[in-house]
């Protein structure tokens, strides 16, 4: 584990591959060969079902009309006819929900781009530039990894009030970028530091400026780490609830805050809640399935946040 943070690309990808697949013979196989692998198979199938059922429940509930919700969602196995897309078509005409979905996008995209930009610049400086107090400042950044966002809520709310951006999207975005930076700098700096010195040296010999080296050497080589960071930040902001709850005004509230406001009448709102929640989680899931490898790499490198 400890080695994964240091070395770029190859070992991490290898670990990621093994972490998410590639069965190997190990302790369990020895145990299994004695007890018969059947037990392990059955146990893991049960666990897999156990892990999947809650999410399936949400999905099926999102397809069941309110009038049918008197019986459990699992009865759809007996009468699939009760499923319909009505709830989803109703969602599209729900202005609050559509608006909050757009707000989520408007908050998430700049927050992600911002962290990648600001974070990679700083990470490059920490990795390859010499300046006074570099190591100490970097240690402080590592320390900031675990600062709870709660600490920022009251002071920044007051600050935003004075600046007149309380309740606005820029306020939410700035908060997200700032609290995303320690992780971003930590992740990218470690990766950038693993880029072979010769490459940078060669570029400097060729007369490249720092900016050129950053743009043409470090960024392309650091792409795997930048992708991990972007995915993490995207998911983190997309899924955020607390920061938006405090800093986003009612007219710019994202999907998570809108959904929470509907949970007060949980039973009655299920027609909106179930499809809305599904909408809110399908985007992260698509991102997750498309970029699993980077996601796992980021998890491996960035634990202890």
């Amino acid at each position, binding site marked *: 584990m400890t080695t994964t943070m240091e070395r770029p690309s190859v070992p991490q990808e290898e670990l990621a591959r093994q972490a998410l697949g590639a069965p190997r013979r190990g302790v369990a196989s020895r145990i299994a060969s004695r007890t018969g692998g059947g037990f392990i198979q059955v146990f893991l199938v049960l666990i897999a079902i156990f892990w999947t059922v809650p999410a399936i429940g949400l999905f099926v509930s999102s397809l069941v009309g309110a009038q049918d919700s008197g019986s459990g969602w699992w009865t759809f196995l007996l009468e699939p006819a009760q499923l319909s897309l009505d709830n989803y078509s109703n969602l599209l005409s729900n202005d609050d929900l559509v608006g909050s979905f757009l707000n989520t996008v408007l908050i998430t995209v700049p927050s992600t781009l911002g962290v990648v930009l600001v974070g990679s610049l700083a990470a490059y400086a920490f990795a390859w530039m010499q300046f006074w107090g570099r190591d100490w400042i970097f240690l402080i950044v590592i320390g900031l990894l675990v600062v709870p966002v709660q600490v920022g809520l009251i002071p920044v709310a007051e600050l935003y009030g004075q600046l007149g951006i309380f309740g606005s999207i820029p306020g939410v975005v700035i908060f997200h970028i700032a609290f995303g930076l320690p992780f971003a700098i930590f992740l990218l700096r470690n990766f950038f530091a693993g880029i072979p010195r010769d490459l940078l040296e060669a570029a400097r010999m060729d007369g490249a400026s720092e900016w050129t080296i950053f743009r043409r050497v470090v960024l392309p080589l650091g792409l795997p780490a930048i992708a991990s960071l972007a995915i993490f930040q995207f998911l983190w902001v997309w899924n*955020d609830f607390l920061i938006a709850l405090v800093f986003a005004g009612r007219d710019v509230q994202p999907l*998570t805050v809108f959904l929470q406001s509907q949970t007060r009448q949980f039973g009655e709102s299920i027609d909106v809640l179930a499809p809305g929640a599904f909408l809110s989680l399908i985007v992260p899931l698509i991102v997750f399935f498309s970029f699993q490898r980077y996601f796992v790499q980021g998890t491996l490198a960035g634990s202890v946040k």
Partner: protein
Amino acid sequence: MAEDEPGLHGEGQVATAGGAAAVNAPDSQPGLGRSWWSLAYLLPALFLLAVVVLYPILYTIVRSLFDANGDSFVGLENYGDMFTDPATLISIRNNAIWVVVAPIVVTTLGLIFAVLTERIRWASVFKLLVFMPMAISFVAAGIIFRLVYQADPDQGVANALVVSVHDIFADSSAYPGAGPREEAELSSVDGGFESTATYGVGDSVALGLVGFAPGDVSPDAVPASEPAAGDALQGVVWLDFAVGGGGEEGSIDNDELGLPGVVVQAVQDGTVAASTETGADGAFVFEGLADGDYTLALPRDNFREPFNGLDWLGPALITPAIIGSYVWIWAGFAMVLIAAGLAAIPRDALEAARVDGATETQVFRRVTMPLLAPVLVVVLVTLVINVLKVFDLVYIIAPGSVQDDASVLALQMYRVSFGGADDQGLGSSLSVLLFLLVLPAMAFNIRRFRREQS
């Protein structure tokens, strides 16, 4: 890596540098970029960190020494309030439960999954399924689990499961809530009923029950008839109620149904001498009973209320229930990290131990676990930090009426500062407490990093 990168060598780099490069040449060795250059790269990040993260830490500490509006200095009063306020004490207690239980459960499950999946062919599918919840928001997960924990077993899958497991081991009773009419000859005993009179061999007894709808009687039931006299102790248990009215109380009228499946006991001197069950017409017979006086008892199992599952979202179970949803989300994280740790263990070490004759249990305990320990520590520390800050799940899953019982520090901080009370002095002191609690983790991170650097 480098070889794969198109456009890395060649034309690109030289383009922008121009004259500056010549000037920079002497000191532009890698690792020696000039200070004022680095400032431009660092400034945006340092500015944001200073204003939005560092300054708030200091300000929060100062703010916690002032009153609700921030007008007057109150010293440590907020901290005093914090540790005497019952709501905060509950949230501290809940946080303690969270911190002790959740990381251990998650890590244990992650370890079990990681070890077991080394064995199966579909490991990647399994890992993907279990890891998937990591990608979704606490809000969506909270809504998922509000559904899971719905109280009605026809709505919530948790109770549906609990009830069906329960019903496998304990038959649900046939006649919940049934009982005799007041004037009947049965008296209530310990949830069941017992006849006030005694009977002997040769007697025929009619026991009338009411208190539930004829529609709820088993479809096998047929109308009861007066118990025929016989040479055993016999009788009938029937529903003393005719659909559509009519009929006389206490007598078996036409179409009044017998109650099948009722357990009847003949009791002598407080011990059950014989036990039988009524047939489709409600008739029962005690064959081969010795002479003597018996009271007839209908034990309480006949009348038990049906089991409707647990009150997951009630005050008593709310914290374990929410921890359950947290485990659902984070077990995949622990599994993936531990699986990576297992993958990094050198095969040689394991094989060497086996060659030396170690059993699999010994190999696991003496070789695998010690080599895995650093990973387990990282997983645990990560989870502890995360659990300390848990907020969304509790806020979403706990219904308004039990939020007081489910509250944790982060939730309490929000509720106190923004959720109506608007006491930002007390809120700040709660933030400071949270911050103090993560300080050891901060030290852990810094130490770990410095060790890896050296």
